[in-house]
């Protein structure tokens, strides 16, 4: 079964990832959607998508559009996160250049997975002020995982349609499991 990340998912991810809400009800993505002084480049977004393709389960489709929306929301009015993401991507590309003579986004899916494991990203403690791999874990890997698993689509993959971080209303907690 294929799970397309929907606009609802992107909105959920944005609200879980730090986009200020208008008022105090349901979240809104209204606004200019522009990042701070140094917005993410197309290459940054392509790299985030390439990482997402490794991190997300096979059922998740249309990762690029989701990552694009998520990345915009993540960086709006948060220049420190722009810096964190871009520096992590720079490190990732430098690492891949030394091993494969190519940027991360140019690698095959298997090579991307191998790269992340070889650098220890699967065992690194996320730390926004830590070393290169720890920052990559925090700003890129964990944020992309959070974006998925705090969304209805990601939640449904593991059995919860209203996961923590998603404002999914008050009906789901009362419902029993589907027969």
């Amino acid at each position, binding site marked *: 079964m294929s799970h397309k990340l929907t606009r609802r998912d992107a909105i959920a991810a944005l*609200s*879980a*990832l*730090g*986009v*200020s*809400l208008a*008022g*105090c*009800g*349901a*979240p809104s993505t209204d606004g200019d959607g522009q990042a701070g002084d140094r917005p993410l480049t197309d290459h940054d977004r392509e790299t985030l998508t390439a990482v997402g393709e*490794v*991190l*997300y*389960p*096979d059922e998740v489709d249309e990762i690029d559009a989701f990552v694009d929306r998520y990345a915009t929301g993540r960086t709006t009015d*948060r220049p420190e996160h722009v810096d964190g993401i871009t520096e992590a991507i720079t490190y990732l590309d430098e690492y891949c250049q030394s091993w494969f003579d190519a940027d991360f986004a140019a690698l095959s899916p298997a090579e991307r*997975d191998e790269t*992340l494991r070889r650098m220890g990203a*699967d*065992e690194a*403690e*996320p*730390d*926004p002020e830590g070393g290169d791999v720890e920052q990559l874990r*925090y700003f890129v*890997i*964990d944020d992309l*995982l*959070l974006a*998925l*698993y*705090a969304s209805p689509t*990601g*939640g449904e*993959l*593991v*059995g*919860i349609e*209203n*996961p*923590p*971080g*998603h*404002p*999914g*209303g*008050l009906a*789901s*907690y*009362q*419902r*029993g*499991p589907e027969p």
Partner: protein
Amino acid sequence: MSAERTASDGADVCVIGAGPAGALIAHRLAAGGHDVTVLEAGPRFGRQRTERMENALHPAHEPPEIWEMGGQRDAFTSSGERSYPLNHARVKGVGGSTLHWQGMVMRLHERDFAVASREGVAADWPIEYTDLRSYYAAAEAALGVAGASDNPFVPPRERPHPMPAFDPSHSDSIFAKACESLGIATHSVPNARNSEPYDDRSACVGYGTCQPVCPSGAKYDATSHIEKAESAGARVLDRVPVQRLEHGDAGERITAAVYATPDGETFRQEARQFVLAAGGVETPRVLLLSDSPQYPDGLANSSGLVGRYFHEHLFAGTGGVIDRETRQHHVGFNTSESHQFYDDPAAGTDGGIPPADVDSADLGAIKLEFLNYAGPSPVEMALSDGGWGNELRDRIADAYGHSLAVGALVEQTPRRENYVGLDRSTTDDHGNPVPEIHWEIDDRTRRTIRRANAIQEAILTELDAEITWQVGPGNTGPAYHHMGTTRMGADPGESIVDHRCLTHDLANLWIASSSVFPTGGAMNPSLSIAALALRAAEHVEERL
């Protein structure tokens, strides 16, 4: 910037602390036309709550970071046999600890005001439930409480809660059947979160991250009454920690609160009345820091009991898995509980809970809670597993879905040996001795935790659950409710404040905090804090 934090002229009232107690009092007095200045040690946090929620979901951020606790400002010493995680347990800033609280708001039972008379331990309150009853109703209206009148164990109330209770969860229905078989009555939970729009705040939208951050604002926090207070004319200064209180030559009245500003300046805020509302740790600390030649042991401390009788609520819990989906973590609050074992914790039930092997007088109160957030959260698993891809998805799916748990708050017997004092070997960012928390658990409290565990095990066994964890006497922790450190009483030799929350020693110094609780039952304290604050506000106003 300095001009923004200079002292006010002509203040009627100086309130120290912008948490729920200080906010409610500031609002009531300002609305009454009085000149009110509020001094808050921490900052105004602004509106970026989704960022804080994100941080709360990231395992890279420790809980104290979420509301910016820690560092030299918040240094402390834990000296008892049990380490006390003070900076997990409080928030400094406008809104205070309601910024990270769970939002459970129960009235104390009638029994809680007379524990010494009934059970021969601790001390009675100098007031009864009937003295506080109307203020409980006012507090429920002020905070916005969603509740129902379905609890057979609570004392009488005068009208329904302001909002209907949240409906039971799916897992509540699982527990309800087991509890019915065992003869345990379950009922709704009063919540200080909106089940419908209330007081210009939205209904809950189900973020599921209530503790420590409600991004929607549906959960009450005291920024609400700070804003109301400011609209009514109160002046609220943030980042101005009070260093000490000064008294007049006769030693009968407070004349000024001396506070520091971020620019390193110091000002004296004079007022006719002073309300100390800085929580159960900083309230006694300010009194102890305010020693003088006339009061070498600190202010309001002729009894020697400032800081003494520090007590908490203990958590007891038992959890496991069953062969049915339990649908946890859709919301971050609870919707069912039981007060069955509150007034009479030793009593058994007709359905299968055996009586305890001790009398109820040998046990404290127990409040059972049926958790809606048992077991691993999928998001937390995703970020703590380390892996990714299909394997991560499968591990989360396997771990999520069948957990359930019964928690409990357990009353701690207040004891003189537990205290909040000053550690003069360590200083904060202003050179003041840091608070020392000395906290231990007595045998009566341990027995009560064991009793709670036994009841919890019986419920899970009735469900044929596999019990996978338990929090008992050996690994229990505090519920982050700081009580008893300036307790209320009729005898000035045995207490700090009188029945009005006015200090025995100083004629214009009031205390609004759970620090005045002689005993704390097993109820989350904030509704009682609010009710006492509203009652104290009336007494303060009589002096203006």
